[in-house]
């Protein structure tokens, strides 16, 4: 069997006259240039120098083994949510002032005075929750499809880093309104980071910008939230997509090569259609939540909680509830519950593609993986629900 390097096809010359580019050029030659309108000329000018049409073709013509699926939409939806978060975030900064004496008032101003301010802020708030939900869905899909396995280990690792960044966004974001919820979530969150071995005390003081939360904390969280994390997320998301394209989509986990080939289509149009429908659905859900449950601030932040029962955002509730258990009490237990177990779990996820080298991707033939995923989901569900039940008991 012999095969040929694509570069050589060009060298032999026949491809030039037959390729997509060539066809266009030939058409041009036969067409007199002044038949093009001004817009076409500009497009032509840019394309000749940048090769935009080739880039576009390459972006859209990605073969998806086994064909497009709704299950593959999560990644695109995440990118969409992130972009809208950036837009709404920038808009919020037009009024928001990150200082302890103005943060609360400026946020109240956005909610109560600025036209549609309540909507943009509420969208940003619910968008962050949607992001976390989608990250869980995306990770679950990749896990269940066995798509983290060779040769996609690096895609998975960068994905885990992105997961951490999304959590960091949530954590730094809800301090910014400087209300009681913000303040106490941060107090407790930073105390937990303080328990990191060796660097804990430094890390906690670094984040707080002092021994206790105050202006320096707000400044630091603000910079991290609006500059550091977006830059990190944009860069890593770019790398994530690059690595994904490099490795190619994994495709379905069952079916013979012939079946998969028969169903293969390109990213455009069917997958993009599914993606845009999913994006529109998520957008409508976030908008509805922003309308039904707009953000309402609690009292301004102060070290006296009054009647407020501090509680983190819902996606941290299971960890919060975990730390209520007596076995995770005391200095060591707390280290175990807040640091060692989540840390070990993340380390396990990072090591997963290197531990699980079996090439079987069918989830129904990977009983340990299926059981493991179910256990983690049930654990999160049970702990979240019990945190909510405890909430009623406290009131």
């Amino acid at each position, binding site marked *: 069997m012999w095969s040929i*390097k694509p570069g050589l096809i060009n060298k032999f010359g026949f491809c030039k006259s*037959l390729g997509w580019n060539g066809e266009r050029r030939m058409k041009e030659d036969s067409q007199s240039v002044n038949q093009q309108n001004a817009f076409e000329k500009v497009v032509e000018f840019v394309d000749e120098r940048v090769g935009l049409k080739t880039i576009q073709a390459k972006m859209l013509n990605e073969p998806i083994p086994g064909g497009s699926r709704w299950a593959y939409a999560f990644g695109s939806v995440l990118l969409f949510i992130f972009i809208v978060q950036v837009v709404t975030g920038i808009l919020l900064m037009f009024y928001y002032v990150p200082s302890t004496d103005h943060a609360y008032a400026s946020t109240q101003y956005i909610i109560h005075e600025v036209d549609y301010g309540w909507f943009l802020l509420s969208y940003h708030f619910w968008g962050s929750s949607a992001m976390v939900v989608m990250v869980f869905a995306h990770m679950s899909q990749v896990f269940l499809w066995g798509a983290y396995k060779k040769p996609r280990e690096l895609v998975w690792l960068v994905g885990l880093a992105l997961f951490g960044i999304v959590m960091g966004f949530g954590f730094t974001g809800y301090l910014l309104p400087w209300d009681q919820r913000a303040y106490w979530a941060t107090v407790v969150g930073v105390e937990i980071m303080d328990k990191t071995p060796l660097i804990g005390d430094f890390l906690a003081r670094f984040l707080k910008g002092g021994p206790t939360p105050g202006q320096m904390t707000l400044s630091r969280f603000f910079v991290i939230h609006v500059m550091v994390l977006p830059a990190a997320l944009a860069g890593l998301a770019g790398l994530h997509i690059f690595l994904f394209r490099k490795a190619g989509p994994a495709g379905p986990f069952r079916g013979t090569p012939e079946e998969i080939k028969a169903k293969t289509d390109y990213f455009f149009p069917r997958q993009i259609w599914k993606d845009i429908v999913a994006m529109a659905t998520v957008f409508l859900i976030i908008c509805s939540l922003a309308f039904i449950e707009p953000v309402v601030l609690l009292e301004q932040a102060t070290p006296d909680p009054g009647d407020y029962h501090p509680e983190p955002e819902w996606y941290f509730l299971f960890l919060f509830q975990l730390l209520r258990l007596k076995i995770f009490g005391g*200095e060591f237990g707390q280290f175990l519950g807040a640091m060692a177990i989540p840390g070990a779990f993340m380390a396990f996820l990072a090591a997963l593609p290197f531990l699980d080298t079996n090439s079987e991707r069918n989830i129904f033939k990977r009983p340990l993986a299926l059981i493991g995923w179910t256990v983690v989901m049930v654990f999160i569900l049970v702990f979240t629900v019990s945190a909510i039940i405890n909430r009623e008991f406290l009131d």
Partner: protein
Amino acid sequence: MQPKLTAKALCADKEVGKISKVIVDPLSHEISHVIVREMNGQGVERQVPIGQVQEVVSEEEIVLRCSREEFGRFPVLERDQYVTVKEVEIAHLEDHLHVEPGEILVPLPRLEQGVPRRTFFTNMTHAIGTLIALPLAFPVLKYLMKPMFKPYDNAWFSVGNVKKVSKENIGFQFKFTRGFKEAFMPEQQIEKNIWVVKATPAVQKAVYEGNDRKFFDDKGEVIWVNKANSPYIGYSGKCPHLGCGYKWRKTKNFPEGVFLCPCHLSIYDEAGKVIDGPAPRPLDVLPMQVDAGGEVKIIDVEYKAGVNKQIRLL
């Protein structure tokens, strides 16, 4: 032997056409078909499965298994059902396709042929980069660390009068506001709270274990001593578990009342001892004095939460 793309295709020793294209399977990355342009007639391009290639005779010639009639029955290439490899992104395609001799070479400029100089420039680039970064590292670190460590504030604050504490062994909350000056900000008034218990001798003993409690400044010098037999005990409002604000509450299991933290449900008795929940140490006793008129004064000491020992932060 690799046939050139202009190679003749022969069926039963007669040339039927020339190879004009190849089709690659995007999943297996193998060539699946060769496209042979017919010599006769209109020169249609026929799609010949790779299995039909019997032999690659030379760079110029391949032999097909089929007869000329069979060749004529191979489907005509429908060009619009294919794209070129330039228009589609197929991961690793280029790694898999190869011909011998397979590389396309361009000459290296003469000036680039000295390998030691290249190594030298690489190393120098790294060295100068490091020289730029190194002197910045320490100033940047110090810049960011500026507010992290502050001397303790050992000032006394009045928080209220003990007349309010009407019963023994029950927690009473005292709220106070204190000035808080941070960096460039104007001084702000912040609200804080402490809990005061009028302790029976038994509770005093449980708290102090018969010893006076000394409080130190950052140099390790004693700034105040709480007497072991002082009847009023003040607790910092910060829960020693993870820093929330706790309350004095009556619950089903503790009808007399206990200190309960709503965050992680740590429960302490009137002596500050942990009776349930995850807290690692008892409530933090504050340096406190009560003057003849019953005015309560405290030093606003705060300790790190979540550790067994008291580590002073403020």
